[in-house]
């Protein structure tokens, strides 16, 4: 390869550094600047497993009792909805892990086939080598 002139090398380094600076700045800025699109039916944060405990109600606080009652009903509705969701969800869960399994098996089968072909080639090589020795 023809050695590039020092000027060319310096120019290239400068351009590379500059571009890295631009791109790195962009990368750090991009996250902060972009408003997250609101689409409520698509949960984008998750990880909760339990509801927060209901506030304790002083005896005689009828308003508070009613509020807790409403909250409990809402939770029951949500739990029922989640059960409905799970009816289809479990199928998809199974499908995903089955797919994982199938892809890996296919990959291993491919590797095994190639390995067998290599072994066959090795056997031919040994044969030819032995014949070469005999002569």
């Amino acid at each position, binding site marked *: 390869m023809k050695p590039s002139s020092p000027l060319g090398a310096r120019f290239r380094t400068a351009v590379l550094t500059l571009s890295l600076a631009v791109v790195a700045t962009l990368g750090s800025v991009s996250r902060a600047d972009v408003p*997250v699109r609101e689409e409520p039916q698509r949960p984008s944060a998750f990880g909760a*497993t339990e509801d927060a405990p209901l506030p304790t109600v002083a005896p005689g606080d009828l308003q508070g009792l009613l509020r807790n009652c409403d909250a409990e009903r809402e939770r029951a509705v949500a739990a029922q909805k989640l059960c409905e969701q799970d009816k289809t969800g479990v199928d998809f869960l199974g499908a*995903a892990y089955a*797919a*994982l399994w199938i892809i890996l098996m296919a990959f291993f089968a491919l590797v095994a086939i190639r390995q067998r072909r290599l072994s066959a080639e090795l056997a031919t090589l040994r044969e030819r080598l032995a014949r070469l020795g005999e002569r």
Partner: protein
Amino acid sequence: MSASSPDADLQPARPGVTWMPYVVAAALLVALFLVFFVAPRERTMGEVQRIFYFHVASAFAALIGWVGCAVASLAYLFLSARQGMEVIAKITDRLAHALGEIGVLFGTIVLITGPLWAKPVWKTYWTWEPRLVLMMLTQFLFIGYLVLRAYAKKDVAGRKLAAGIAVIGGPAVYLIHVAVELWGGNHPQVVSGQGGGLQHPDMQLTFAVAIASVLLFAASLVHLRMRHHAFTDELEDAYLELSDREDARS
């Protein structure tokens, strides 16, 4: 070199560390046990959320594989021009090839488990959302790399071409990431995101074990493929040498 020496060199590729597959299998089984029996049910998505553990771990493995492929290809292009670096250059080339293959393998897993999660949760298999786009485009790029690399076989020029594609592709992965981030989207921000994240300690444990075991699995697969490529190269060298000798005899 005596006539029998190529034969002695050529043992079929065995895993270098024989206990490694058992460790990997045990780690994966532990991870699967944690995913299905220990991690609690998630409250907004339900059981489907269990896809997440292996989905995200596979995405990690794929991205690490691709970036590693680009870095190893860069090293290969550097070293192949240096005198006396041939052996290391060959190793970087095989490493890049193996990393590219495993990256595409786990990329396939991500692109199939992802939609299966999205359908019940987002009510759609596919959406033009930054991370999905990034994953799919990178997958295409490295499939191109693999096709070119497979086509090259023993040809050094062809191997360099494939390496060039990977070197150009590495920074492109980051630029695509920036571009689609700017574009905006709503993929769950699990790892770096604000809000969310896994709250329950059992979930965190499961996630950590899943990532560790999948990465270990990926690493052992890369090792397996590297040995395979090394064996293929040696075998072809031996064939060339053999035909030379046969020609010399006759």
